[in-house]
């Protein structure tokens, strides 16, 4: 590397000096009312347009997990193949405290959130002892660890059979029952409200000093350190927040299915969450909803016709990485920009690099 503008080593990955002007994408600033209004509108529309309330609920649950993954990948540049640890643990823990501890709905979700945050901070603290690919490999290895733990503790988790008869208690607050959620519509409304609150919260987090610094750490970790930031603390906090959102998503999923399968904590679940994030678009929160939505809808349609539809997902992932690194949402935005003509620069887009820079393919 040098500062004199000589060509960089041809076959090594681009470092900090790569120019990525195209990486500026407006965060849907062109939309009326901004992203929050768009999400609100979508939450109302989804149950009307989609074939079932259950499907709409499933989309929102995975969108929560994707949102949390996006916080790590899109804003922190941390590619985690360990998200299923938090998703699965959230499912198991909330189910167990409901089944054996007599916990109600909100306390169970809160337990999942707190446990998810602690677990994620632990996993994050260990994994970020190494950077770059080692970091990614370790998140994957930790996911395997969690899987084997869940498999071994079959007395609690049900092992291969999964945890059966997970309840879906009514929504109560201070002993007052507010709503019975056994009906699919009621459960959708509850999930939608929760999703909306989480969406707003994550937006706030990104616009906070923490969020802006997290982006800085992703962009250039060495510089962030030189400016006085202990970058490890920012990464660990990002993990904790991610876990605090992912685990309740797992809990909601178990209540939706009345069942907590072992798959929830498998590596393939982590992969799915990452794929939804990338396909939807990293670094944009609406992209997460789009990613989760298209995944659930496509899997629902294709699973009937062609059980091996995951081949398409693999292909889609490759194509997106090569040709549309901003994901589907990035594609939508560039279309909108073409119609409207420009937007204001906001958060950068594109799949971030582990060594702390965003990059776009050569094409």
């Amino acid at each position: 590397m040098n500062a004199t503008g000589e060509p960089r080593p041809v076959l090594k990955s681009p470092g900090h000096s790569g120019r990525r002007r195209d990486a500026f994408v407006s965060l849907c600033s062109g939309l009326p009312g901004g992203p929050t209004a768009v999400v609100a509108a979508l939450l109302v529309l989804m149950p009307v347009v989609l074939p079932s309330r259950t499907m709409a609920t499933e989309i929102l649950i995975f969108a929560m997990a994707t949102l949390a993954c996006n916080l790590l990948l899109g804003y922190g540049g941390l590619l985690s193949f360990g998200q299923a640890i938090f998703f699965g643990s959230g499912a198991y823990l909330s189910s167990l405290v409901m089944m054996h501890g007599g916990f109600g709905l909100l306390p169970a979700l809160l337990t999942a959130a707190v446990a998810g945050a602690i677990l994620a901070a632990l996993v994050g603290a260990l994994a970020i002892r190494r950077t770059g690919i080692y970091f990614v490999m370790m998140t994957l290895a930790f996911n395997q660890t969690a899987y084997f733990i869940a498999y071994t503790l079959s007395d609690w988790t049900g092992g291969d059979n999964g945890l059966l008869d997970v309840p879906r208690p009514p929504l109560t607050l201070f002993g007052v029952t507010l709503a019975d959620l056994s009906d699919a519509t009621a459960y959708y409304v509850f999930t939608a409200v929760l999703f909306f609150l989480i969406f707003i919260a994550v937006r706030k987090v990104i616009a906070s000093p923490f969020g802006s610094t997290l982006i800085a750490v992703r962009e250039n970790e060495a510089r962030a350190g030189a400016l006085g930031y202990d970058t490890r603390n920012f990464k660990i906090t990002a993990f904790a927040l991610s876990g605090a959102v992912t685990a309740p998503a797992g809990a909601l999923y178990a209540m939706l299915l009345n069942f907590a399968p072992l798959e929830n904590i498998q590596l393939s679940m982590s992969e799915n969450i990452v794929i939804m994030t990338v396909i939807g678009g990293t670094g944009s929160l609406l992209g997460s909803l789009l990613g989760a939505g298209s995944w659930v809808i496509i899997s629902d349609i294709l699973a009937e016709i062609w059980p091996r539809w995951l081949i398409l997902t693999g292909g889609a992932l490759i194509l997106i990485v090569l040709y549309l690194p901003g994901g589907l949402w990035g594609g939508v935005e560039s279309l909108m920009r073409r119609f409207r003509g420009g937007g204001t620069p906001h958060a950068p887009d594109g799949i971030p690099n582990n060594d702390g820079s965003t990059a776009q393919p050569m094409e």
Partner: protein
Amino acid sequence: MLYLFQVLNGLGLGMIYFLISAGLTIIFGLLNFVNFAHGAFFMLGGYLCWSLTELTGSFWISLLAGPPVVALLAWAAEVTLIRRIYRLPHTFHILVTVGIALILQETTIMIWGPIGKSIPVPDGLQGIVTLWNFAYPTYRLFLIAFTALIGFALWYLLERTRFGGLVRAGSESTEMVALLGTNIHRLFARTFALGVGLAGLAGILSAPIRGIHPFMGPEVLGVAFVVVVIGGMGSFTGALLGGLLVGLVQSLMSTIWPEGASLMIYGTMAAVILLRPYGLFGRA
């Protein structure tokens, strides 16, 4: 005696892990490329072994023909797709190879079905060898000897041949090798094929012991990552010692706490990371 049995098992298993990790690490060393499809190619090796053995009736033919087929597939993937993404950050490598792994896994299910298969121990290696009063399965003994031979051949290839010299020089400086007039594209494609071929070979060798199923890829990938996190990426010796360590831990644990044997592999990794963040042989 039980422990000797398990130590030998651990050696065999460890050598399998070594082959997988060595492939991963050779590719990373020269190409600076992270192959998350490595486990899927291992699985493919196992399935090719099954099909070729069914087809020809001989394990030996599959052992001979299987790795080249896997390597050829890897070569094709390199030439058509992977070559185009070397320049991109590691995150892109990971996502693209995760995509490849998914495609391989689902294609395997499409061709061979979702249920696992077992492969008979090859002719001539069935039964046991008895030394004094210690009995040990012949195939497992063969496995240790054969993988040791492959390991030696690999060492010879990397350290004593022109190809190996180029791979090692290229790991230090790709431009230097290019300046020396080597066709760097060809070198990269061959190295990728070699590394992935090793995973295929490992898949074939372990098939008669552990059977095959379409979801074994991620499992193997996880173990390979533990080995390279312990031993250090890009290090041949690290892959060997890391592989043996993991193999021995897993094998010895399986007598003490069978359900937790796999778990212990990851426990070992966590311990190494806590005590020596850069691995047993790694430097900052």
